[in-house]
């Protein structure tokens, strides 16, 4: 029987032999993201910082300077004004350090004139809610990672757990780098993206581990871990790339059709799909080999 194949079934790339370059690459990208977080920081949305956000659609073409001038006139300092689309009709105004009693949207409408614009969306988040959301976002990220780790420990050999864990952390950090380096607003939807990527990343890793487990069952404990993992990666290569490609197929329309938060979400998912596949091969696999080596050395020492 013949199959339509993009990736030939009998590949035997030596992934493991070259992984040192990629270990360096991973460490560099993680470090870059972490340095970026400490130096530049995320562009947190008002969900996390507290403040006001208005999405306004003007009936007529309006220069962005006019919007800024109006804001100054009503005494709002340090507000960011971003134009949405290219029609000069839609603006997104974000003002942090304001609270729920400021009524920014009402003042803005009054200053511009009620018949000159429609408020598409207006959000005001108090500082208390902001800090609570920040805490619960971090909490849910942390707990989900711990739970996933426990699950892998439980389902697989503990030799596999460190690899999957490091790959997971790697993916979440690198994917969050998307928000960091593009300066797109980091909102609650971004947390959803990161959590989904965490789930996806582990899913990917598990498929290869599952193969390793299968090969080990057939070949016995004696076979070399390095060879087994390389074989497993080659066997699942087609699936790894296909699944990422199929998921990308649904993510692309989201990027093209939606805008704002959901678009950022989709873009971040795209990054996540890529690093998810990458980390399975170049982070989880080497980590597992290192763990194996470390354990064997300890075992030898014990003897």
């Amino acid at each position: 029987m013949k199959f339509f194949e993009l990736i030939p079934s009998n590949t035997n790339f030596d992934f493991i032999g070259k992984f040192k370059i990629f270990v360096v690459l991973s460490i560099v990208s993680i470090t870059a993201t972490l340095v970026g977080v400490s130096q530049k920081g995320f562009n947190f949305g008002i969900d996390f910082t507290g403040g006001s956000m208005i999405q306004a659609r003007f009936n007529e073409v309006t220069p962005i300077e006019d919007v800024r001038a109006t804001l100054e006139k009503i005494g709002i300092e340090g507000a960011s004004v971003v134009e949405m689309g290219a029609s000069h009709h839609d603006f997104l105004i974000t003002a942090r350090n304001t609270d729920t009693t400021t009524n920014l949207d009402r003042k803005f409408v009054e200053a511009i004139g009620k018949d000159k614009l429609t408020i598409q969306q207006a959000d005001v988040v108090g500082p208390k809610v902001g800090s609570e959301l920040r805490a619960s976002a971090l909490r849910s990220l942390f707990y989900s990672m711990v739970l996933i780790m426990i699950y892998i420990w439980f389902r697989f050999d503990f030799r596999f757990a460190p690899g999957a864990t490091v790959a997971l952390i790697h993916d979440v950090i690198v994917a969050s780098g998307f928000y960091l380096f593009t300066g797109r607003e980091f909102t609650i939807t971004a947390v959803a993206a990161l959590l989904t990527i965490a789930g996806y990343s582990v899913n990917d890793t598990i498929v290869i581990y599952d193969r390793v487990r299968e090969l080990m069952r057939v070949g016995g404990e004696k076979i070399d871990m390095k060879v087994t993992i390389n074989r497993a990666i080659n066997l699942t290569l087609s699936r790894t790339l296909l699944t990422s490609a199929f998921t990308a197929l649904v993510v692309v329309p989201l990027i093209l059709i939606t805008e704002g938060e959901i678009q950022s979400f989709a873009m971040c998912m795209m990054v996540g799909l890529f690093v998810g596949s990458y980390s399975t091969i170049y982070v989880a696999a080497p980590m597992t080999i290192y763990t194996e080596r470390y354990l064997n050395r300890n075992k030898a020492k014990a003897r």
Partner: protein
Amino acid sequence: MKSITWRFITVLFTILFSLYLLVPSAIKFSTGKAIPKFPKDSDPWYYSYLPAETLQLGLDLMGGLHLVLGIDFEEVLKDSSTNLKNQLKEVTETAKIDGLKWEMTPNHEILVTFNNDETWTKVEKVISDSFSQSIDFKAQTNTTATLAISPFFEAEIRNRAIDQSLETLRNRIDEFGIAEPIIQRQGEEKILIQFPGVSDASRLKEIISRTAKLSFQIVRTSPDNPSGPPSEDELNALVSTFEKNTGTKLSPEKPVSQYLKTLNEFLLGKIPAGTEVLFNKETDVNTKETKYTPYLLSSEAMVTGEDLQDAYVGYNDKNEPIVNFQLTPLGATKFEKATGDNVGNYMAIVLDRNVHSAPVIRSKIGGGRAIIEMSSRYRNPQEVNDDAKDTALVLRSGALPARMEFLEERVIGPSLGADSIRAGTNSLLAGLGLILVFMGVYYRLSGIVASFALAFNGLLVFAAMAAFQGTLTLPGLAGLTLTLGMAVDANVLIFEHIREELRNGKSVNLAISEGYHRALSAIMDGNLTTIIAGLALLSFGYGPIRGFAVTLLIGLVASIFTAIFVTRLVFDYFVVSKEKQTLSI
């Protein structure tokens, strides 16, 4: 092939049942009317055979107002401990324990002063007999003791405050008349309110934010008596000294409560004990300037909103709107006595710490009827009318236990919602279409089978959400799209395994059963870890993200069913049972 028949029936039943669950939603979205829980005779006959549950659109898709409110618990606790103090005073007076003085400390604790140990022993007994659950002893000296609300009672007070606020807000919003509002507790101490389709928030916010605490208090300003309370000029002078010292100023932008609190702390000792200063506020409609006039009032209220039976809008002889109200019989008696004792004095009508008016008491007022004037000379008629209506409404529906704080406020315009629905559905359909094409190209007939299994998966998600009245949000639609993308993974895994078996020279039938068998553990493990991530998101439990988590979770469970059970059935029916030698995969 009995097992195939049974599996076929299961799948067919699932499809039909899902469609059945979605019929009410389809009717609701096409006609704009939901199927009632108890259909009337005039409704179509099939209404009584359909479930009433439908898909709900999130506010981000249909537009509306979303509010999260908090309660000023400090105020509640202050009120409760003042209440306790009064009860203690009453109980000890009834028990004829003399030589006691009850006071409130600045941090809302009760300070009792007694003359000897014997009295104290009696007080202690009273407390342990009737107040042991609600009062804790904090500190004690030879002649004083500090009492405070116990943690147990405090928890109860907080709980009760939330319940009472919910109840009051429901009443108010009901009377205001808004379709399908959502008013519920969020977490321990917050209240979530959603008004679908509402975009003008200002008047609703006004109705929600008014505590509606009503009290009648005697005005104590007496210009003639030099040793008595300060005159109006002296009062003004005191207020301006305070404003100069602290750099604060009254303004309509800021909540008054904080200002009043610090002002009255500052005035302690400068005004007679048992009095407080409150303001009358009036805004000129033309200049938009707000004028504040201070009043020195007796802190003790003659009657309060609790003595109110009804409130309604009426008109005075100048045809200006006023609020009439009627006191309960008990309140009327109190009111009659208090007005009788204070003939010639001024009586301030205080609503939410704002002195509305302060008419002079000409004679004893019986019957328990009174009015609030709306001070129309400064505002336009429409505003005065709305104000009178809203005031009557909030008075009728009862007071809130304390001031509500707006923690979060989101308004989504209807056109944005429509845009979002379009964007969400389009990307969902585009994603499905792309998958169908590519799966068809790559796995041929098997790929198309898998794509239909995906569409079935989507159907299951919508049906489950309709059955549980789940809320569909834009992130939810994105989540669903993503789930479909990831659900393909299960079929890709299975197909790759089948191909591998076929390459190894296994027969078609064996390859299929081996392929499904070998892929199972990876599919289960992979889905379960994503389910863990989804549950973490759900526990995060935040509005639209909840929608995302719910669709993700339902989608994952459904995908296990469709990818393993449904596609397997198709293979078993068309390939395995017919002993085909080739497979389009």
